[in-house]
Each structure stands twice: as C-alpha cells, then as structure tokens.
C-alpha cells in the first residue's frame, strides 16, 4: 500500500484539530502532516529548512492550504508551488474561511485545483472536510503515481 499523504497548512490550531478529526474519521490517509505557516509549507514541499531530509514520499497526495497564513500567505505559497517544475502539478486545495470573490479568483488564477470554504456550522464542516478527503484521496486520480491510486480505488 502506497502512502497517501495529506499536507495540511493551517495556522489555527482549533481548525487544525477539527480538520484532522474530520479527515481521520474517513480514514483514508496514511499520513497527515501539518505545518502552520507558509514558510513551513514551502520548506516541507521542497524539503528545505527544518524539513530538509524529511521522511516520507517526495510530495503529498494533496495539499490543503489555508489562504490566511503567517509569514507567507497561502496564495504566495501556491504561486511558488506552481512556479516550480517539480511541484507545478501538485494538487492544491484552498481550504479557507474566506468567501471573498477576489480570493477565489486569485486562488484559481494561481492554479488552485479547488477552492473550498470552511463552513461555520460544525455538521456542515465535518461533512465538507470528509468529502474533501474522500474525493482527493480516493476519487481523484493524481497526475503522478496513478497506478497506485488506481489499484486502491
């Protein structure tokens, strides 16, 4: 069984807990790595800084990226990921509290694969995050290493 890693970039610890809880419930990911700001996210992706020589697969299956992040914003992180040939195909889902049109637009312009708003209501939140996990880990076929995903689905 190949590792299905989710990278969650979330600075809000409460959201982090609730998101992890929702994702764990569907129990699809082998590993959920959490970073708490944009810089960390980039370091993780490019195995730099504190994440230089980290374990695990080269890239996560999907990155759940908050927009409003300390140090480097989510949209900038996305831009850097898309700009780098190593990572430009990485599925990135913007998972954010914002429902601002400009955020949505810029997100898609920067190459987001999906834009998901975190509902305030807990039931709706759990539902949304669960479906998100299922979709990206089970339903969606990633650009690389697809054979693995295919067999599992």
């Amino acid at each position, binding site marked *: 069984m190949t590792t299905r890693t989710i990278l969650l970039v979330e600075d809000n610890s409460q959201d982090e807990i609730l998101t992890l809880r929702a994702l764990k419930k569907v129990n699809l990911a082998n590993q959920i790595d959490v970073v708490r700001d944009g810089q960390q996210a980039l370091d993780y992706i490019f195995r730099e800084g504190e994440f230089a020589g980290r374990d695990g697969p080269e890239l996560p299956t999907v990155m759940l990226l908050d927009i*409003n992040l300390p140090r480097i914003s989510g949209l900038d992180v996305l831009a850097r990921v898309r700009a780098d040939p190593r990572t430009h195909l990485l599925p990135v889902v913007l998972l954010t*509290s914002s429902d601002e049109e400009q955020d949505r637009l810029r997100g898609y312009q920067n190459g987001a694969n999906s834009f998901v708003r975190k509902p*305030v209501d*807990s039931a709706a*939140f759990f539902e949304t995050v669960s479906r998100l996990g299922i979709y990206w880990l089970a339903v969606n076929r990633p650009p690389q290493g697809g054979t693995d995903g295919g067999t599992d689905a």
Partner: protein
Amino acid sequence: MESGAHDDLKGQKARLLRLVGAYCAATAAVGAAFVIRHLLALVVGPGLPPFIIFYPTVMTVALLAGMGPGLAATAMAALLTVFLIFPSQGQSAAASAAAALALALFFTMGVFMSVVAHLYRRARQNAAAYQSQLQQRENETRLSTVFHASPVGMCITSMSDQRCRDVNAAFLSMFGYTRDEVLGKTSLQLNLWAAEKDRDNAIRMLQAGESVRHFETQCHTKSGEAWTALIWAEMIEFSGEQCTWAMFQDVTERNRSERMIRESEERFRGTLDNMLEGCQIIGADWRYVYINDAAEEHNRRPKRELLGKRYMDMWPGIEATEVFAVIKRCMDEREPQSMENEFTFPDGTKGWFDLRMSRVPEGIVILSVDISERKRSERALRDSQLLLQQVIDLVPHFIFAKDRDSRHIFVNKACAAASGMTPEQMIGLNDLDFVPDRAQAESFMRNDRQIIDRSEPTSDIEERLTDRMGNTRILHTIKIPFTHPGTAERALMGVAVDITELKHAEEEIRALNAGLENRVEERTAELKAANKELEAFAYAVSHDLRAPLRALSGFSQALREDFGTALTGEAGTYLDQITLASRRMGELIEGILRLSRIVRGELQREHFSLSSLAERILRDLAKAEPGRRIVWTVEQGLTAWCDPKLMDVVLSNLLENSWKYTSRTAEPAIRFYAERNNGSESFCVADNGAGFDMDHAARLFQPFQRLHREDEFPGIGIGLATVQRIINRHGGTIRAAGAPGKGAAFSFNVSHPGVSEKELP
C-alpha cells in the same frame, strides 16, 4: 324814302307857312301904318302927306320879309291911300295929278325898295354860302391831314363793292403794302383778315347802323405775318358814296406784353403757391395780403381766416415776442432779416421755423421752413451724443483712436487718467510723449501702424504698459483700423481692458487649483486607503470571526460525539444552544459581508429584463418549496438600466420576502409590475402576506431590524437594507407600503442612462 318825302312835305309846309306869315305881317304892318297915319292926321291935320308913313313901312317889310311882301305892302298902301285917304282929303286919284304923281312915285319907290331889298337878301345869302363853302373846304383839308398823318391805320372802303377807296400811311405800314397795291382792292383780295368771320360780323354791325368799337381780330401783313388789330369802324359818306371808315391799331405787342406780364404773374403766383417754403406777404398796414399753401400749413389755420386781417390781431400776444420784433424791424427798416424761431401756437403746441423776411412793394414777405423735425433730430443727436460721451467716459476701460502717426485723436477719461492726464491734454500726443518706456512706446506705434496699413483688426492682444511709477499694467486690447469720418484719413480705434487684476486672480486661481488638485489627490488617496481598510476589515471578518465560531460549533459536536454518554442532564441541550448560537453568528457575519460587498466594486449596468429575472426567481422558489401554492403574476417586458447581479440580489430579496411572509396567508398572491407616473417608471413587488405597520416603515431598511419575530418568519434582517443600498447605488429610491395582515408592496426605481450614479449609499 318815306321819311325823306315826309321831310320835304314838312319843308314845303314850313315854307308856305313862312310865306303866309310874311304876307300877313306885311298886311298887318300896312294896317298898323294906316292906323298910325290916321292918328297922326288927327294931330297934324289934313296937311299930312298921304304916304309919309307908308314909305318906312314898305321898306321895312321889303327888307325883312322879302320882295313879294314888299310889293304886296306897296299895293295895299296904294289902295288904302287911293280909296281911303284921298277921299277923306277930298281928292280923287284921278282928279288930283299931284296925288297921282305921289301915288306913282310911292308905287315906284315901293317896287324899287322891294327889288333892292330882294337883291340885298340874295347877296347876303350868297355871301353866307361862300363862307360856308370856304369853311367846309378847310375842314376837309384838315380831316385829310389828320387822316393821312394819323398813327392809327385808316381805310375807307366802299360799302357797295367793298373796294378800298383810301388808306393812310399808318395802314400801309401796318399791312406792309404800298398805296397802289391797296387802292381799288377788296380786303379779301389782299387777305387782310385772318378770320373772315370777324370781317363779316363787323360789316353786319355797320349795316345795322351800329358802330364797331374795340373789335379785336387777327390780321395778316402782306408777307403773311399775323398781328392783332383793334378796330373801330363807322359808316361815312365819302365822295358821295356810302363807305366804311375803319381804324386799325396794332395791339400785338401790347397783347404780348400783357400776356407775358400775366404769364409771369401766374408763374410767380404758381411758384409761390406751390413752394415748399411757406410764403406770406404782409402789407404795410400789417394786413395779410398773400399766404401760400405751405404757410397755411405752418400757420395751422386756414388762409381765409387770416387774409385781410391784421397780423397782430390774428396772433394775440405776438407783439411781445422776439419774432415780432424781427418782423417789425424788417417792416420799418426795410432790411432783410432771418431767424430760427420756436413758435408757440395758440393751443400751446410748438414748432420750429426758419424764417426769412424781406421787403416787397406791398410790405414784407416772410418765407418759412418748418424745421421742427430737424430740430428734433438735432436735439436727439445731441442727446445721444451726450449720452454716448457719458457712457464712454464712464467705461473704466481705455477707449482711444489714433492717427497713422500714433497721435491720439480721441481718448476717454479712463484712458487719459491712466497717464495722469485729461482727455483734452492727451489729444494730439503720441505714445512717445507719455509712455515712459521708449521701447514700449515704439513697439506700440509700430504695431498700430501695421494694423492701419494692413487694414487688419486685431483682438486678443496683451500689452504691457509701464507707467511713471513703474507699475506695469496688463492690457487686453482690441484694435480696429477705420477711416476717420472727419478727415477721411486712415486711423485706428482701440479698446483696452486693464486685466492686471484679472491676471493676478488667474494666477491665484491656478495656484488654488493646483492646491485643490493636490487635496483631491490626498482625499482620494485617503478614501482609497479607507476602502482598502474596509476591505481588509471585511477580509478579516470573513476569516477571523468565522474560525472561532467554527471552533465553538465543531468542538461542541466533537464533545457530543466523543463523550455523548458521559453527558448528563441539560448538557446536551446546552451544546445544541452553542451550536445554534454559532450558526446564527455565522449568518450575521455572512450578512455583514454581503452588505459590505455591495458598496464596493463597480456597477456594471446594462438594459436588463426585470420580468425575466423575476420569473426565474419565482420559479426557483416554487421549485424549492413545491408544497406552496402561490398565485404569482409578472408583468412582461419590464427592463431597467442596472447591474444584473445586484438587481438579482434586489429581486431575490423582495420576492423571497413575499414568499416567506405569505406562508400564513390563505390564498397567497405575489405580483411584480410597473407603476408609471409622470413619465417615470417604478417597479413593484406586492404580496397579500403578513404586511407591516407603516409606523415602523422607516426601520424596515435598517440592517438587523426586524418587524417580525424570528420564530414567526426566520431571517436576520439584512435583506431590505441590502436592497436599499443597491437601489441607492443605482440612483433610485425604494418605498414600502403595507398594513398588518394586508400585505406589503415595495416599489423602487433606478436612474436612466446619463444620470450620474451615487457612488456611495
């Protein structure tokens, strides 16, 4: 003939009577002598000679009564003596020889005296006849002399054959013939008469025994020249035959001069009558003699009223006036006078007249011209000139005219005052004379001459003029070339406006404007910053306020899921309340964000079908709640100039409200239609739902204000506030009408293209 015979008879009778008288007288004389002899015989006695008394008697009778009566008296005396005296003396004639001798002697003497008396009388008669013949001859000579010497042309023509018997020299010279040519000819042969009818008339008059007097006719001279003759004619006896004696006077010249005088008089009178100038002649006695039509008009009264009347009687009070004094001077001094006079008519009106007076034989003539109009226009011209001068002097700008040598020919006060002069002082000066800066003056003069020479007006020149004090004025000048009406020389007229102040003001305005622009920029920047801040705030709200709510809600659920069994009592209910509260908080935040989004961003307006939009929304609502049976009607063809996305928000809110508030109505109905009033169009969403109290209508559009309880009709109270902001952004207004239980109607309008939109609600 009969009357002639009658005269003869009378003559014979008279002669017979005279003869009878003579014989009677002789008889009486003899009788008387016999009586006297008888008486004497009584005194003297018988010795008295018988014939003594008869001798003187017979002699007297013979001398006075002629030979016949003398012989008769002799015979009677002899008989008386023989038969009466001799017997009384006793003698018989035969008896007394002496007596016979005396008788014979007496008889002889009586015959002798009678014969002598007869001879004496005959001689006396002859002498008288001779005398008279002499007289007649003298008369004839005199007449002939008069006839031939008379300057009046005379002609004697026989009545019987109409031939000329005699003419005088004057006649010949009048007609141009010689005597021989005329004598024995008829006037017709000579063609003397221009009109034969006149000749016939004259002859007819003469034949009727009338004289021809002052008979005027046209005659021909020998050469055919016509002349006018005045003719007198009489019948006379000439050389024992009936003739006409005609006298001719040549009146051609007289007639011609008379005619000329008459014509000239007519001409003058006609001229006077028809002259445009008034003409009146006033006699030396001050009476009007003549008034022509123009003068009649000037007098403003009919001439017949004035003619023959005295001047001063006709114009009471005139003697005190100046015009009368002038007229009187003319009359008295016989010198021509003239004056312009304003005459006041009796009715008080006035008229100006140019009067000229001069003397004429009758008195004076006054020629008048009505110059009222001229005086009026002169006055009007003077007034307007004065007005114009005042205006020109009042104008604060410089008005001037210069000739080609730049000498001022006209300046107004303002212009002269600028150089510290009066207009009079400035006339004739050129720019060099008073512009302190020589270069400036020369430049002015150069430019001016160029304008005059090129005949091109210039405007919009800005000139700088520095005065003695060193102050520079900025003048905005217009200059036009023109021909001076007086001198016919080319010149230049200009108007200059001192725009020094204006220029300074302009600079200030420019500076102010620049400052203003800076301020606008600052303000815009501030506004931009504020907008950005608002955006940042909204952004923060959407991110940061939501997260804690999600946490509240999420952890409540986690608690229930993970520790549901451990929770006792009201714990579960409380967790539910936390979840509900956070959900509601989330909705409120959602509303605020929506509201804030509406006031941001550009309006993208287009003509958009509201009818289609309303139908789509209602269909969606019906689809979402298929259980509701609502009758809805949408008026077709309604469009508005609006942002479709925002108008969607408006109609969605209104129609959703109607949908929501008719939920408790028995037969719910919703209408979307347009109201048209005075050319403006309002769109209406009306329902027959719960309605509202009009007292609270103002609160309807306030955010988070609700007129219904949450448990009756759910909602957060942000919809109508949003709708109002959108309508306001579209330059329109929204009004609500309704009553509790009677439904509600919301009508709104939007501005038309071209009407500026409100940028902020």
